[in-house]
């Protein structure tokens, strides 16, 4: 049991549907996210990648289907049943770290406080314990010297690294990244991807929505291509990037290559 609480988790989606009014954002999506591996979600804007990611920690409530973390259902108290109790949902969310495109740090807190807040309020650690763990997390993302800076005094790349520190300090068993580098100046992308590579090497379960095909090609264990709310193709980076079997995937990659005029 103790082992299970710290071991990387898997996630499983079965026939997940999500509607925004009449618009169906996810159409019967099924996907298994293996523990300790990096799964990258790619696809055009509006294809449902972020929605899928946000269904895993129920920031978006899916309308039907099942989402499980390991074997535990999240979102509903039973398949097709009522939405789960808020308290139970909070407990499950502790196991799931999330990093957002817009960083979403709390502006009135220093970098250190952004990390300690969850440790104190959710994990129930003492201030001293929380600070010591937060400092470890900040050191890990290379920001030990920025702990007393407020977000308004950090660069985009630093903000995202603090956000990653805030998530990993909680010791999640699975990490969700929602376009973590899309809001960054190109020269700052590398520092964030570097931290993510390091996490991947440590065996964290990671689900990454990304437009960084280079990252997907080099770090992902599995690449999932989505379009119009459906999973169109999945495979190893080699299968997806070098020999795209689906014409829509091939055309998406062709468009990407033309825009970036580089090879990967």
């Amino acid at each position, binding site marked *: 049991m103790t082992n299970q609480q710290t071991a990387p988790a898997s996630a499983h989606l079965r026939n997940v549907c999500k509607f925004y009014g009449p618009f169906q954002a996810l159409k019967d999506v099924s996907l298994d996210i293996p523990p300790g591996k990096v799964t990258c979600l790619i696809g055009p804007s509006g294809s449902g990648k972020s929605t899928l990611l946000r269904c895993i920690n129920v*920031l978006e409530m899916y309308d039907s289907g099942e989402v499980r973390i390991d074997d535990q259902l999240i979102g509903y108290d039973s398949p097709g049943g009522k939405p789960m109790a808020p308290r139970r949902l*909070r407990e499950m969310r502790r196991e799931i*770290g999330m990093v957002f495109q817009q960083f979403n740090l709390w502006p009135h807190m220093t970098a250190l406080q952004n990390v300690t807040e969850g440790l104190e309020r959710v994990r129930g650690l003492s201030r001293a314990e929380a600070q010591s763990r937060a400092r470890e997390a900040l050191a890990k993302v290379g920001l030990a010297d920025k702990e007393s800076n407020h977000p308004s005094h950090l660069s985009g790349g630093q903000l995202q690294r603090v956000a990653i520190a805030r998530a990993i300090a909680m010791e999640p068993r699975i990490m969700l990244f929602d376009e973590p580098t899309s809001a960054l100046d190109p020269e700052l992308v590398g520092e964030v991807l570097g931290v993510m590579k390091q996490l991947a090497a440590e065996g964290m379960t990671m689900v990454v929505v990304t437009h960084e095909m280079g990252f997907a090609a080099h770090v992902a264990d599995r690449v999932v291509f989505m379009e119009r709310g459906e999973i169109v193709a999945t495979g190893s980076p080699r299968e997806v990037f070098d020999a795209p079997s689906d014409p829509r995937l091939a055309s998406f990659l062709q468009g990407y290559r033309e825009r970036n005029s580089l090879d990967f």
Partner: protein
Amino acid sequence: MMETLHRYGPDLLTGFGFTLLSWALGTVLGLALGFVIEIARRFGPRALGYPIRAYVEFIRGTPFLVQLFVLYYGGPLIGLRLDALPAGILGLTIYGSAYFTEILRAGFDAVPLGQIEAARAIGFRNTTIVMRIMVPVMMVSALPALVNFAIILTKETVILSMITVPEIMFQTQTMMSETFAFVTPILILALFFWGFIETISRFGRRLERRFTHYLIDRT
């Protein structure tokens, strides 16, 4: 004139005390009630939306003097028998709550959703999200409006004289009717309010600095 001041000074000081007391309690309780109403509107059942809106619109849509009369003279009809001072403080509380709740609503609406989602994703409960994230973030934009309304409330306290609360307006009127002097008492009253409000403004600016310190460039 010195003689008049000497004679009415103690009464004016007492009136000043009552004004201060009704303003302070009316503001603090009004803000607290406004906060509770806004939290109920935001996190409570959807059915609460309409009654809350009706309450806010009724209070904002009627003069404070009318509300006070309804409360003080109409209250006994439904068994609410209050002395002048408690009735005045309750009136200010209700009046203030409707405005405060609207200021807080706009403030909470301006908190970026992503900052709330980040807290949810970590597993914060709603009370923690409100007290630790939403309130401090909101204060940056809402504090000037809150202080502004607290200042408006100082001036509404003079209306309590109409239901015989012995606050400073009431004392000034007594002084005027007994001495037939008008200019001096009214000037004293004006100076008193000016000083009072200047103090609140300064305090408000200090609070603003406290809530926005992280936005100010220290380099």
